[in-house]
C-alpha cells in the first residue's frame, strides 16, 4: 500500500526539474505577457482590461505594414536559405564520406562558435563603405569609387541567410541521408533526367527535412533582432524592433506584450499555412528535426 505513493513521489521528484523549467521559463512568462497585453493605460498607474493594444496593431498601418514586411522578408530569407542549403546538404549527405563529411558539418557549425553579434559585426567589416569588399573592388579597378553595401535590405537578407544556413542544412542532410541510393538510381534507370529525379524523388523524400528546416529558419529569422538592427538600413524596421521599442524606449509594456503575442500568433499561422500547403504534419516534421 505504501509502495505506490512512494513511487509516485519518486516520479514527481524526477519530473520536477523539467516541469519547473517548462513552467517557469516558458509557460509562465507567456501567460504573464498574455495578461499584460490586455491591459490598457487609463491614467498614470491605472490600467484597465481592454483590446486596445490589439486594435492599435490593426488600425495603425505602421505596425501591420512592419509586420507584413518582416513576414515577407522572413519568407524570402527562408526560401533563399533553402535554395542555398539544398545543394550543400545534398553534397554532405550523398557525396561526402567519413572525415570529409564531419569536416563539412563542422565548417557549417564554425560560425556559431562566436555570438550572433560578432558574426554580424564581421559582416559589417566586410560590407561597409570603407570595408574589405569595397576596398578590393576599388583596388582591382572594378569600381571607380567606394561602394556602400551596408544598411540596406540586401545586407539584412545576407546576414539572416548566413545565420539560418546551418539550421537548414542539418535537417536537410538528415532527411537526404535516409534516402536509399538505389531509389535514386532507379529514378535514373527508368529514364528520369537529373531534374525529374530531383523533383519527383529527392525533393519529395526530403520534404519533412525541408519543412522542418524552413520552420526553424523562418521562426529564427522573424524573431531575429541584432542582424536587422545592425545591418539594416534607415528604411527597414523589423517587427522585433517595434516590440523592443515598445518595451524599452516607450515603456509601453502592454503594447509590447500585444505585439509579442501577435508575432507569436501570426508567425504560427504562417507556419501552419506552410504545413497545410505542403501537406506535411507537425508530428512528422518534428521527428525529422
Amino acid at each position, binding site marked *: 500500500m505504501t509502495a505506490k505513493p512512494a513511487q509516485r513521489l519518486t516520479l514527481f521528484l524526477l519530473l520536477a526539474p523539467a516541469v519547473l523549467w517548462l513552467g517557469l521559463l516558458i509557460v509562465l512568462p507567456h501567460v504573464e505577457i498574455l495578461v499584460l497585453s490586455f491591459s490598457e493605460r487609463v491614467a498614470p498607474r491605472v490600467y484597465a482590461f481592454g483590446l486596445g493594444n490589439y486594435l492599435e496593431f490593426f488600425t495603425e498601418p505602421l505596425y501591420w505594414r512592419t509586420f507584413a514586411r518582416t513576414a515577407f522578408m522572413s519568407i524570402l530569407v527562408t526560401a533563399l536559405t533553402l535554395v542555398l542549403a539544398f545543394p550543400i546538404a545534398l553534397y554532405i549527405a550523398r557525396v561526402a564520406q567519413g572525415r570529409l563529411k564531419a569536416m563539412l558539418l563542422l565548417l557549417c557549425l564554425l560560425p556559431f562558435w562566436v555570438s550572433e553579434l560578432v558574426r554580424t559585426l564581421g559582416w559589417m567589416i566586410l560590407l561597409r563603405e570603407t570595408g574589405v569588399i569595397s576596398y578590393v573592388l576599388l583596388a582591382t579597378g572594378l569600381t571607380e569609387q567606394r561602394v556602400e553595401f551596408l544598411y540596406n535590405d540586401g545586407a539584412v537578407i545576407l546576414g539572416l541567410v548566413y545565420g539560418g544556413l546551418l539550421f537548414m542544412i542539418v535537417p536537410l542532410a538528415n532527411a537526404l541521408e535516409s534516402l*536509399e541510393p538505389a531509389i535514386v*538510381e532507379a529514378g535514373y*534507370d527508368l529514364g528520369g*533526367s537529373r531534374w525529374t529525379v530531383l523533383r519527383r524523388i529527392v525533393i519529395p523524400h526530403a*520534404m519533412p527535412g525541408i519543412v522542418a528546416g524552413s520552420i526553424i529558419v523562418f521562426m529564427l529569422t522573424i524573431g531575429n533582432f541584432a542582424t536587422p538592427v545592425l545591418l539594416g538600413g534607415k528604411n527597414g524596421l523589423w517587427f522585433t524592433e517595434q516590440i523592443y521599442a515598445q518595451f524599452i524606449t516607450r515603456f509601453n509594456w502592454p503594447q509590447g506584450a500585444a505585439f509579442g503575442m501577435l508575432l507569436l500568433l501570426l508567425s504560427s499561422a504562417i507556419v501552419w499555412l506552410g504545413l497545410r500547403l505542403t501537406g506535411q504534419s507537425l508530428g512528422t516534421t518534428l521527428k525529422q528535426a
Partner: protein
Amino acid sequence: MASSTDLDIVNVTKRFGAHAAVDDVSFSVAPGEFFSILGPSGCGKTTLMRMIAGFEHPTSGDIRIRGQSMLGVPANKRPVNMVFQSLALFPMMSVGENVAYGLTCRGVSRAEAEERASRMLDRVGLKGFGERRVTALSGGQRQRVAIARCLVLEPTLVLLDEPLGALDLKLREHMKIELKQLQGTFNTTFAYITHDQSEALVMSDRIAVMNQGRFEQVGSPRELYHNPETPFVASFVGETNRWQGEAAPASGGAIAVRLPSGAVVQGQGRAASGALAFVRPEAVALAQDPASLSTLPNRFEGRVSAVLFDGAASSLLIDTAGFEQPVRAVLPQAGPLAGIHVGAPVHLGWTADAMKVFAA
C-alpha cells in the same frame, strides 16, 4: 544493323585501383533468353550488372545492346531497366505512379501513362492496386510492382539484381516460378544475378558462373550441373562431395585419385599430381548387400552418422573408412533403406563417370 543478340559483353574489364572487379568478361544474351550470372558475393557480378545498367563504366571493353555500343550512353537513355535488390520502389508515390513514372519520363501524357500503368498492373495480377501506397503491399506484391515498373517500358533487357533475396523461403520458391512465367509471357530478355544456385538453376535458360571477376563456365543448368568444367563450378553449383588427393594412373581412360588415407577412387577427368574429386550425393548408390554394388569401381563400407531429413532433399551423412569427412548421399525415399537409422552399417559406391576429377 540488325542483331541476333540483345546483349553483347565484349572483353569488359572494370578495375577499382589495382583490383579487377570484372576481368575480361565476354558473353552474349539472345532475345527472349533468361540469362543468369551466378556467383558468390564479391565475385564482380553486381559490378558487371551496374555496368550494363549504366551506373558504372568499364575500364576497357564494350557493352552492346542490339548491336549498339552503350559506352557513353547514360543510364537514363539505355533500353535497359533494372529490378533492384531492395526493389527501390518510390515510397513517395502510389503503386500506379511507380509504374507510370518511366512512361512520364519519356514524355507520355499523364492520362496515357496512367492507362498503360493500370493495364500493366492487371497483367501482373495487381488489378485495382494503383491507388495504394507501396508501403501497404506484401513482399510478393512489391516484387511484382518492381517488375511491372520495368516491363511497362518494354525494355530490350531487364536486369534483376537478386530481387528475391529479401523474401522468406516459401515466397521465394513461389516467386521463382512466377518470375519465370512472367518472363515467358512478356517474352522479354532477362539478365538475372544471384548467389543462390537454386534460383539460377530453376529459372534460367543459361547460366554464367562467375568467380573473382571471371566467368568460370557458361551453359545450361544441366550442363553446369552434370558437366562442370572447373572445380569451382562443380562445388558451387548443387550439392556435392569433394575430396582432395594425388592423381594416380588408372586403366580404361579413367583417372584414379589416391586420398590421404591411402584409399583410391576412380573417376573421369584430368589431373597431373594434385587432384580434386567431386561426386554428387544422388550419384552415391547405397545397399545393405555389398553384392548389389559389385559392378561399381568405387565401393566402400560405412556407418550412418546423421540423417538430414528434408523431404525430397533428405540426405545421409555416412562415416566411411578411408574418407576424412562423412560422405553425403541422398536418402532413399522407398525400399529397404528408406527407414535407415543413425549407426546402421551401409555399403556405398559410385561409377567412374559420376566422379569428376580436376587438377587441384
